[in-house]
């Protein structure tokens, strides 16, 4: 399973990790919906760390779509809400 962390690149993460990632992902989602900055900061960092520590970085020259995409690591809770709410925010 290929996961992109925006601004960092793509990681090949074992499929076994998906369940654990989904748990963290839904925590991040509730934090974004509640606009809860401190909860967001904590669980978003955990989610990113898990992808980075369990995944292998894809070589730069590999051209492949990601199955899942995560916002840039320095995003604020508002920025993530904006990325999800309006497609126009992602250029290209």
């Amino acid at each position, binding site marked *: 399973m290929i996961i992109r962390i925006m*601004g960092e690149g793509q990681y090949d993460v074992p499929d076994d990790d998906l369940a654990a990632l989904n748990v963290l992902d839904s925590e991040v989602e509730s934090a974004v919906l509640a606009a809860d900055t401190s909860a967001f900061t904590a669980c978003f960092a955990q989610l990113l760390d898990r992808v980075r520590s369990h995944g292998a970085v894809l070589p*730069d020259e*590999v051209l492949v779509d990601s199955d899942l*995409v995560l916002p840039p690591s320095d995003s604020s809770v508002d920025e993530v809400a904006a990325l999800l709410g309006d497609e126009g925010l992602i*250029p290209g």
Partner: protein
Amino acid sequence: MSIMKRMGLIFRSKANKALDRAEDPRETLDYSYTKQLELLQKVRRGVADVATSRKRVELQMTQLQQQGDKLHGQAQKGLAAGREDLAREALTRRSAVTAQVEGLQTQHAQLQGEEEKLTLASQRLQAKVEAFRTRKETIKATYTAAEAQTKIGEAFSGISEEMSDVGLAVQRAEDKTASMQARAGAIDELVASGALDDASQEPNSDIERELAAISAGSDVDSELAALKDQLEPGSKPEAIEGAATTPPAATPTAAPTAADPPAATDAPPREGQP
């Protein structure tokens, strides 16, 4: 729906839209390649812009640090001359300068982070653009327009996603740098106006002027003493004795009486005398 999946869908729909625009699918390859090269240029410009901002902040930090050192020196001179009021004023201004330097250090770290991120993004994009070019040439040489469709879809995989990602990274870096440049401009103005500047500049010339007056006074005194020595070689021992007896009488005025008027200033210890 989960955040990871939603973000993934947004990216894929963007890639599909780009593909749908094409009439002869093989033309999309060249068009997309041109766009990729443009974006690569844009990222490189972004790296250069952030580096320029970083250097500007570095220059400001150096200037402010020099001013801080100068004010520190003025505080030392003020104390040595028994003018605690001047020393206090110099140190007060120095603490304002120090606060500005700390703010700039934070900005500097942020700019360095952005520069590093954009540099890596530009390297990643360059590798992917190169990989895309190879595939593009293969597809054009091997397939007819009809056959090319699926192959082109595959070639677009990843590159479109990378372009969206890098595009956003450049945009974020531009936004951050723009707000920092506004602040940097404000600091340049402050420095130019002299509000943060060393105490020797208008309108804050009082410290330097008074210190200069003190040191000029003691220079004159020591030169006078030297001249006296030359005129009356016989009285030399007396002159030294006379000079040596003056400082003890003068030292009480060096006590921390901030309200002391400059009248006390012509009695500093005569260290300059040989």
